[in-house]
């Protein structure tokens, strides 16, 4: 029992690290434009397929086996695809609705989400069913006492934490980060101070997409299997994590993600229903958090725009 528990905790941490990469995008975009970007999960999914496409068609055969060459290139490919899709989405779908009532962009986001899922299913070769993802990283797992963690899982945790710290530093220290925080606090005043909100929003979407793209490729390497549905599922988890941590807060998103990862994996062994119901428990958690603590762990109370 103890061994199982430790194993589930380890799995939960890896899963949490993955979710964090997506949740950061949600939290940044929501913090700045108050939009639940439903399609952000699809950006993650597209990133995974971008990485796979890079492996399949771009990398020469002799490079495919050398992980320290292949994997960075795949991540780069995934990130490029993610960023392009995300920026196109912002420009075409969301920007025209900047001043529309809040329902409009939310429904647009749903439309974009469905569109991207279907576009991948229809136009990526054979993507109508799940696609095997090459195990490019070191395949020997790490064994610590009773716990076995795949090397790719360790990589995921490391990358996730490093990127979150970098992001935190960027937002707190850089000029653009300051502009972001200003826009999030008060877009109109920020504009008066000479900040171009369009630029801030584009950069925000791009940063979210970079993280999601990295997450997508590492997800593929970790799970070794991707399909066009991974975006929606993990997107909802990530959103839950972002809300749990307090939407708009980077630290909150990361901690919320680890909580979600642990809840999901511990629910598999501890809560009634087992693996079949772990999703249900996450949704229950989401509802409880939204109803009783919508400001989350580290966020401010939600500002309601009429």
């Amino acid at each position: 029992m103890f061994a199982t528990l430790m194993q589930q905790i380890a799995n939960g941490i890896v899963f949490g690290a993955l979710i964090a990469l997506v949740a950061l995008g949600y939290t940044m975009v929501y913090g700045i434009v108050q939009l639940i970007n439903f399609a952000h999960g699809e950006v993650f999914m597209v990133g995974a397929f971008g990485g796979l496409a890079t492996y399949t068609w771009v990398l020469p055969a002799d490079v495919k086996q050398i992980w320290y060459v292949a994997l960075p290139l795949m991540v780069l490919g995934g990130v490029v695809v993610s960023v392009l899709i995300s920026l196109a989405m912002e420009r075409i779908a969301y920007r025209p609705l900047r001043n529309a009532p809040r329902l409009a962009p939310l429904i647009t986001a749903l439309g974009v989400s469905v569109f991207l899922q279907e576009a991948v299913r229809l136009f990526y070769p054979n993507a109508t069913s799940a696609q095997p993802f090459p195990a490019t990283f070191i395949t020997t797992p790490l064994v610590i006492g009773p716990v076995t963690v795949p090397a790719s899982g360790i990589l995921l945790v490391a990358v996730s934490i490093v990127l979150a710290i970098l992001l935190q530093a960027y937002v707190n220290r850089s000029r653009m980060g300051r502009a972001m925080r200003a826009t999030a606090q008060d877009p109109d005043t920020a504009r008066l101070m000479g900040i171009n909100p369009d630029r801030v929003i584009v950069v925000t979407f791009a940063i979210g997409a970079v993280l999601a793209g990295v997450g997508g490729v590492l997800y593929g390497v970790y799970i070794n299997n991707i399909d066009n549905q991974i975006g929606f599922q993990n997107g909802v988890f990530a959103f839950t994590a972002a809300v749990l941590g307090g939407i708009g807060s980077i630290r909150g998103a990361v901690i919320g993600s680890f909580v979600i990862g642990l809840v999901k994996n511990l629910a598999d062994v501890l809560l009634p229903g087992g693996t079949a119901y772990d999703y249900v428990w996450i949704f229950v958690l989401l509802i409880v958090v939204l109803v009783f603590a919508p400001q989350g762990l580290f966020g401010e109370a939600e500002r309601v725009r009429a």
Partner: protein
Amino acid sequence: MSEVSTAGRTGLFRPLSTAGAVATVLGALLPWATFVFNEGPYPAKATLQFFDAPFALSGFRLHLMLFGLAALVVGFTRLPGRGRVLRALGWGVLAVSAVNTVFLISNGGGFGAVSASDGAFAFGCYVGLAGGALLVADNWHASAEPLPRWKFSLPLWAAWLVLLVSFGAVLLLVAATLTAGGLGGAADPYAGPVFLSFLGAAGGLLGGLHGTGLLSWIGELSEKHRLFSVLVLLLCALGLPLTSAGNEYWMTVAANIGVYAATAIGLNIVVGLAGLLDLGYVAFMGIGAFVAANLSGAAASALGIHVPFLLAAVIAAVIAGIFGVIVGSPTLRVRGDYLAIVTLAFGEIFRRAAQNNIGGLTGGANAIPNIPQVELFGLEFNNPVTIGGLQLPGGVLYYFLIVLLVALTMVAFGNLKNSRIGRAWIAIREDEDVARAMGIRTGKAKILAFLTGATLAGLAGAVFAHKTATVSYESFQFLESVTLLAAVILGGMGTIPGAVLGAALLFVLPEKLREFSDYRLLLFGLALVLIMRFRPQGLVPDRHRRAELVAEDVELPAAPKEATA
């Protein structure tokens, strides 16, 4: 495209529009394809003959001819709203030409199918497209013209006659739309384009009539004689089995549309009136369906008891309503998009639970099959019936049942909208804080909105269970919720005809366009984005009240005037 508004232009002669009309007529007469298709000639099999007999017009060429002639005549009159009429006709011509051109090119293997080759020449589609484009471009600014208003009043008998005739025409149009192109799929490879082409023509026709002010006038007339219109409309709906759509297949399609239309009207209460975005709405329909399935005496149901249908439907509605209150209770604390997420979470919880066969009640992946048909008053609902000397096809009883269901939800919606609680909902939609300050008990009102919507959905679900005979969790996915939401938004939030029109479009299109079924969701997602961008108020906008989605400061490109009139 001139920058000058056509409103100020009173000259009779409109060279560009006239050229467009002439081009349309020519396009109708010219050949459209250069060769005969494998499945048989496109025109012949699609009842559009033009290979051997270019002047024997039928099908889409007839539509084009009529539109062209109409545009020609209208262009030389001082008809009020002329620009609007011409523009609508132009869009119709453009739609019809585009559909047929795209089909010929894609199925004929390229532009050779519609261009000169092998001595034959076929430029019909180019000329038709040009005609439509000219008509639209010349009247691009027609929205600046005021929509003509017909003021003359009629004696009672004449008003009733007008209403009778117009609703009869609606019935025929509905029947023709349903049957346009035939069954589709393998039965007729041309069904998709024929249907789409017909839809384009019908849209152009309705747009043109709207431009003259006729439709608004009939609308006002029917509002004045409300009870009579409702009765005639009900009669017309019940008369559908007597038209060309009167066979088992179309009855089934119509019944399915009806179920979703009823559900969409219920959703319209929650989203359209109270402004609470519900992304898990289909779960209520699912709860109703599973309750009805368990009470139907189906072999696979856990309870194994058989309750008469009417009672089962009531129980299903009540249980769905109870869940509505549960799902609605977070609205006391949660607002806006957070609420949308809560409803989404509830919807997903329902689906996961149903998928895992919770309590043995949902059958899990096996679903609950073989739900017996409804039996009421000694009638078995799957069988054909004979009333008097009239032989009606099988499934017609379900259709009648569902027409009654839709009528019931419509009455409920209409009465609620104009009631005290309805006004409270609209006030909440517009501004919750102000509504509360005005003394509305917002919490109660919001929960009541969820309760009403869920009850209606549960009722629809009960009918759905018996109608389809199998209830599976797969019928109640997140995407179904989004589709219902899209139906409400496409039709127009807060209006009854909008929800019915939206549901009809979203559930007829996949039925008719099976050859494109793979692209259904792709186009659906795209459509959501485009609607939000270009016509957020929907096809039938709420005339009296600003819908949640139309900001006053956003300038809408397409005819926003009538939305606020």
